[in-house]
């Protein structure tokens, strides 16, 4: 005999995050039937809906299938009871970031608007501390020269170290996630294959799973723009860090990397624009937007915007140039350091889940 331990707090949380009346679900299976990505064996999201309704947190935290979903919204559109399975799955993913976050405090920090001031205060204090330590905490006279105010070597070094530390913490969570997946969805008789790294990489780069999704080509375009814009910016940033060490920094506007960086910010702005528009005006397809959705959209937007302004301020010798740069650094912290604990954590969790799913032949 198996015992069922409903976690009512978890159910209440899902209800709050998704806005779904979980008890209205009549388990008809229409959602699984219309989903283009649901595997033949044990398809989703009907089973996730009953587990959510029963508050079975342990079944949902190590769940592979919620990461196979690419949020096309077909299940919600055609749901005869309007229980919005797409929003419930999205809420389970949000809960997963917090569940696997170590220390737990980091997950809480970025999931609740109450903690937002503290989440902002931490990077502000750290950056000011670095400036004090370097003894450059005084706006220099003359034309804008960021290195006179911001000690690049120390800043880059500290930021990289903190990022690595945070990601190391996150890797423990991902390890636990992997273990849970093995319990929840054990490999079939065929066993587990070697990690299909290239296959998953191809899936991610081509966004092929988005095409599998029913009615959401606009979602694919926006995500492609953001994905490649973001990847490009990270590459440009790494180059810039290397440039500060090896040769003259800042880069002139004609430098190919500088041009690439600006192209990337255009891509990101376009992607963000589409996403925001869809979240505001196409709720029937894109579902309910939660705090984490808006937080991460805003953080990326502010990061890109402040980056662009920092560059303009340098060329235009603006008096607020240093303030803008400071703001930019806080935004960097928000997007990069907090990444595993916010919605952007899907970069790690979805990739891990895809690796596991494909290795056991789940598609």
């Amino acid at each position: 005999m198996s015992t069922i331990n409903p976690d009512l707090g978890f159910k209440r949380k899902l209800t709050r995050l998704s806005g779904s009346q979980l008890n209205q679900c009549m388990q008809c299976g229409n959602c699984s039937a219309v989903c283009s990505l649901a595997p033949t064996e044990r398809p989703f999201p009907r089973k996730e809906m009953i587990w959510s309704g029963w508050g079975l947190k342990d079944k949902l935290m190590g769940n592979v299938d919620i990461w196979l979903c690419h949020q096309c919204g077909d299940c919600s559109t055609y749901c005869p009871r309007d229980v919005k399975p797409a929003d419930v799955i999205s809420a389970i993913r949000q809960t997963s970031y917090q569940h696997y976050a170590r220390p737990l405090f980091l997950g809480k920090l970025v999931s609740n608007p109450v903690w937002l001031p503290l989440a902002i205060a931490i990077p502000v204090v750290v950056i000011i501390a670095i400036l004090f330590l370097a003894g450059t905490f005084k706006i220099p006279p003359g034309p804008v020269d960021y290195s006179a105010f911001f000690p690049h070597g120390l800043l880059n070094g500290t930021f990289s170290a903190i990022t690595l530390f945070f990601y190391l913490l996150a890797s423990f969570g991902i390890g636990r996630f992997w273990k849970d997946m093995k319990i929840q969805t054990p490999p079939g008789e065929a066993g587990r294959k070697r990690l299909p790294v290239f296959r998953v990489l191809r899936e991610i780069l081509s966004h092929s799973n988005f095409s599998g999704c029913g009615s959401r080509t606009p979602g694919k375009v926006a995500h492609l723009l953001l994905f490649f814009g973001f990847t490009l910016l990270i590459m440009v940033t790494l180059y810039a860090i290397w440039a500060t060490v090896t040769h003259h920094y800042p880069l002139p506007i004609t430098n190919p990397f500088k041009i690439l960086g600006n192209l990337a910010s255009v891509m990101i702005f376009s992607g963000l624009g589409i996403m925001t528009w869809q979240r505001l005006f196409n709720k029937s397809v894109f579902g309910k937007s939660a705090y984490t959705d808006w937080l991460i959209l805003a953080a990326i937007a502010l990061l890109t915007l402040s980056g662009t302004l920092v560059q303009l301020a340098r060329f235009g010798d603006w008096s607020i140039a240093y303030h803008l740069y400071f703001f930019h650094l806080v935004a960097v912290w928000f997007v990069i350091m907090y990444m595993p604990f916010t919605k952007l954590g899907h970069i790690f969790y979805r990739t891990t889940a895809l690796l596991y799913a494909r290795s056991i032949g789940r598609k």
Partner: protein
Amino acid sequence: MGDDQTRNTISETDTLNLPILIIGGGISGITSAVELAEAGQEVVLIEKENYLGGNVSHFNNYFPKLCPPSCGLEINYQRIRSNPRISYYTGASLKNICGTDGDFMVNIQLKPRLINNSCTSCGKCAEVCPEERPAKLGRTAGEKAAFINNGLAFPMKYCIDPEVCKREACARCLEVCDYNAIQLDASPAEVGIQAGKIIVATGWNLYNATLIENYRYSEESDVVTNVEFERMLAACTREKIKLTRPSDGLTPRRIAFVQCAGSRDINHLPYCSAVCCSASLKHALTLEAEYPEIDAEIFYIDMRLSGRNEKLLKQAEEKERITLTKGKVGRILPGDEEKGLVLEVEDISSGCKRKDTYDMVVLAMGLTPTPVAAGLKVNEYGFYLPDQPSGMIPTASCKRPMDVSSSVKDATASALKAMQR
């Protein structure tokens, strides 16, 4: 119960001075009419189609005993024919209702039949008629403008569809009719009826299947509604022919029944239509008994059967060629190489997603109320409320979806209600 003091006794004095008007000449309206007339009450029955009998007259068989419609309708037609207290109008549409409870004045418009009472239903007019009525829900394709209800015609006379007939420009039927029954110049007439009470028995409509885009009713001719399927079965029984599918005339081997097509769906009809589960079981059992080459599979959310209809489920479960699968059909797609229809569904009992091919799909469509007659109060779904301030008495399936046996009981109850002052 059974207390003599509270029991209503019907006597001559209980009948109203004015006749009772019954709107709708289907099985419920007919039932109310004969019950009232046989209790001594004058009644006027009006029906918008050219024949009485309504939907039931087109059925293959009906609840509760799965009799053919002739079984119940013929005896009722006989009761109407032999009772001088019943007068009826067919082809009658309601124009307006004036007055109050106890003294209504109702104006109706009669569309011309173009064939008068001299008709002997020899059928020569239909033989020469070159015009065809457009195929419609359950209407056989190829039906001529001069036609007779191919179920159980009452009155047993031909009529001509004035919207299709070319009148004097054609007039071929005039030449062949030996009884001077054709009157192509007949025009609509108006009649005023004074009535003490009004019973509304306007029945049900089928939900519009084209609105369920995932089921491709508009695109696939082999996706039919349950009412169309019922009439196909009736035509097969009547003409002693094999059941064929609409697209290519071949005999289907596998037929899928899709339950809750439109019902229990917030995007369509939020309520349960109550009769469709029984109807699909009835269809499957008919196929099992009469078409040994056809397998039936019913896809359902829950099997909802009431009262004695429960036994249909027990019967179906015992049959090898009937499969019952729990799971709402998500999509119907055209099959590979345009052969058959693929149903996407999660088989909830096994927890697997299935994409199987069928030769034909029957949508167990939900029922909707008929459009509102003036001054009647409706509930949130458009069904008439049982108690009307105007004193009119809605009866049977215009109040909520119900099967024939429940409708007949309700119509009898409404007759009693109408006779009480």
